[in-house]
């Protein structure tokens, strides 16, 4: 044990720094801080202007992130929590741990009106079924066509992943009472249900299914990073369910001013221009330079679906039960 502590000591020696600068602690999900996520660039950009030390603390995914903050409660060291989405904000707000943000003069480029006093959006995406253009010729235009087709899909479990939950709400909002019927129709198209996005997307790329539940922006990664234009997202006439990722300031922060400054920075070009090619989502505020080349090839569904945080929380259990019953047959 002492041995491993020593090793850990050696490993963190490079990061430990006794600085006098104020430290802003931002809790976020793991993929945000990875080498390939927005974290490193965001940290550099904010530290260049704030005269502070931006300290990212990562834990799992968005749900794990909220779970951690709830576990820590009032004693949390977080000043900002970044990475919740609209499925989680009701629970977060209910905890009373979060504070309202200062007035922001921002021209949101979100597909919905945004006026939340606590949570500030930083990016958004629309869920969509992604397919390979060279393999799938007849592309369904709605859930019923998908259910009627022979196409196979792999989806994420709503009990363990955000996209899975998004799909649950997508079908529910598009079909209401008829949602169980739609799920029953989809049951024979579903190859399997994975715990998270990574597994589902991996299975799709391995050819295990014709389509995968992902985002309309997914094809942009393949096009821009791999010069591969074979992936596309299928536009559905019911509209596409929206995921808005948000951040908020903790009520108990001792860096209130700095936290406010970070939230404002988050809506600036410096932050927003990092998002498209690291998080592969749409920026909440389109940067002055516009979106990276390649994004113009993506489908831009006209209609976006989104339950308010309170609605989402209210219907979740019933929708989940419908889903579970329909797919368990």
């Amino acid at each position, binding site marked *: 044990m002492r041995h*491993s502590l020593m090793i850990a000591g050696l490993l963190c020696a490079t990061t430990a720094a006794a600085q006098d600068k104020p430290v802003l602690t931002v809790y976020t999900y*793991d993929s945000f801080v990875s*080498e390939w996520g927005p974290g490193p660039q965001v940290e550099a950009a904010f530290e260049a202007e704030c005269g502070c030390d931006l300290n990212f603390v990562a834990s799992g995914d968005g749900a794990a992130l909220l779970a951690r903050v709830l576990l820590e409660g009032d004693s949390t060291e977080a000043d900002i929590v970044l990475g919740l989405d609209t499925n989680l904000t009701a629970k977060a707000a209910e905890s009373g741990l979060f504070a309202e943000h200062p007035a922001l003069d921002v021209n949101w480029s979100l597909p919905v009106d945004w006026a939340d006093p606590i949570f500030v959006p930083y990016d958004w995406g629309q869920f969509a079924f992604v397919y390979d253009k060279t393999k799938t010729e007849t592309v369904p235009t709605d859930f019923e066509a998908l259910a009627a087709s022979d196409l196979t899909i792999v989806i994420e479990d709503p009990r363990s992943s955000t996209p899975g939950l998004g799909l649950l709400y997508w079908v529910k909002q598009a079909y209401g009472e008829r949602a169980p019927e739609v799920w029953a129709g989809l049951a024979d198209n579903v190859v399997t*249900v994975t715990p998270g996005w990574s597994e589902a997307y991996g299975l799709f790329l391995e050819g295990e299914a014709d389509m995968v539940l992902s985002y309309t922006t997914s094809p942009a990664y393949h096009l821009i990073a791999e010069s591969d234009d074979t992936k596309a997202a299928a536009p559905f006439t019911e509209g596409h369910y929206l995921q808005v990722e948000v951040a908020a300031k903790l009520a108990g922060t001792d860096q209130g001013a700095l936290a406010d400054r970070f939230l404002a920075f988050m809506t600036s070009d410096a932050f927003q221009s990092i998002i498209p090619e690291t998080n*592969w989502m749409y920026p909440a505020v389109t940067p002055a330079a516009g979106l990276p080349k390649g994004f113009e090839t993506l489908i831009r569904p006209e209609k976006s679906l989104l339950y308010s945080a309170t609605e989402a929380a209210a219907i979740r259990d019933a929708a989940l039960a419908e889903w579970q019953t329909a*797919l368990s047959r």
Partner: protein
Amino acid sequence: MADRAQPLSRGLGAGAGIAATLILALTLGTLGAVIHRAGGFGSLGPADWAALRFTVTQAALSAALSLLLAIPVARALARRRFPGRGVLITLLGAPFILPVIVAVMGILAIFGRAGLLNDALAALGAERVSIYGLSGVVLAHVFLNLPLAVRLLLQGWRGIPAERFRLAAALGFSSTDISRHLERPMLRALGPGIFVTIFLICLTSFAVALTLGGGPKATTVELAIYQAFRFDFDLGRAAQLASLQLALCAAATLAAARLTLPAGFGAGLDRALARPDAATLPLKLQDAAAISVASLFLLAPLAAVILAGLPRLATLPAPVWEAALRSLLVALASTLLALLLALPLALAIARTKGRLLETIGMLPLATSALVIGTGLFLLLRGLASPAALALPVTAAVNAVMALPFCLRALIPAARDLETDYGRLAESLGLSGAARLRHLTLPRLRQPLGFAAGLTAALSMGDLGVIALFADAERATLPLQLYRLMGAYRMADAAGAAVLLLALSLALFWILDRGGRADAQA
């Protein structure tokens, strides 16, 4: 007179006590922390009971199949000598130490809808078959656990002294006779323990059961725990489900202990093994078939993983290599700690008659990673920042999680050691450090090497609690692999998987080899 109870020496008692305490702290302690925070238990619904039924069913099927299929393979490997046998045995162990997601991808490359098997079937004009569902879950669990069963059984065969086979040969025993008089008692001694070990591993299955289960029918208790923690933030329900898992673990371990009969082969003089009984053609064919089929089943998915990742291995980004180094250090620290804990525990278990210590030793298997992570988080939060603790905590948790496997390997050998040489050592006053150095370590060298290799490899590939604690600078290789996948970089992730596989296997091979490099003149 082998059943006489012996008092434990003070050093041994203290060592076993510390090990047991650490295990209890990490299993029941973390669970207690969660229960304390939740303010009590939650309530379980019909869905939870359905999940429990599915979990137990798939775990029992997976364990039974793994054990049954392992018998012919281990027997064939035990009685045959051929070039490359050692390497094959190491390679056959690989699936057990793979990170789950990598193993699943490998399985699907062969057995999936777009896998080789289905392509072959399609080429022959046959229907494609889907493995998703209970069959897929069991297939994957057998793929992951057959290697463990084979290795543990192989230890069992090695544990039958060559003198007994020599006697059998002298008496003109056929293979059937040998099976009845030598192999069945060995299986009776080891089988229940191996079954329960695999049963418990599968009990806490999460990603495999879900990914290959095909839908919510295949809901496991671990998923229900995950859901309770993450999506409902219902700590009480999570704690109750986790308690249920631990209760199942204790019951299964005790049941196995009742079914276990000591083989009582006595000691041999470590002579080399010759098996004239197996020299007949049908048996040669049977063994060749067992080895070939198992190799194909276990190695084809591995080959798929390697082929997919090899092209990217050289160009992996620097953070992956840094994470690999970090994982290596964590693995070595875990291994050292695991051996320091496992040895006194195994010796104490071998010398005492009660089942308490043995049951405690199995608890980590049935402990939900989420409960350990959350509980530790609650317990340690006040002491230091979770990120600073990430690596030491990961090393400690990995060590404790590997303990049940170490004990599986060590306990039978420690029991034999007691039975065969306990009295002689006592009559000569061999105790303390001298006993450790001149009797325990040399006699337990093989299982110790195996346990060390297994711990190192498991620790290498384990995502475990690091995901809850680590920050960007302290990612381990498996975490980095998941990060690559999460960032769409599936090809790099495949490369990282090959690196992980190579490092895990190398660690296992070196340490296991160290245990087998024979001191014999």
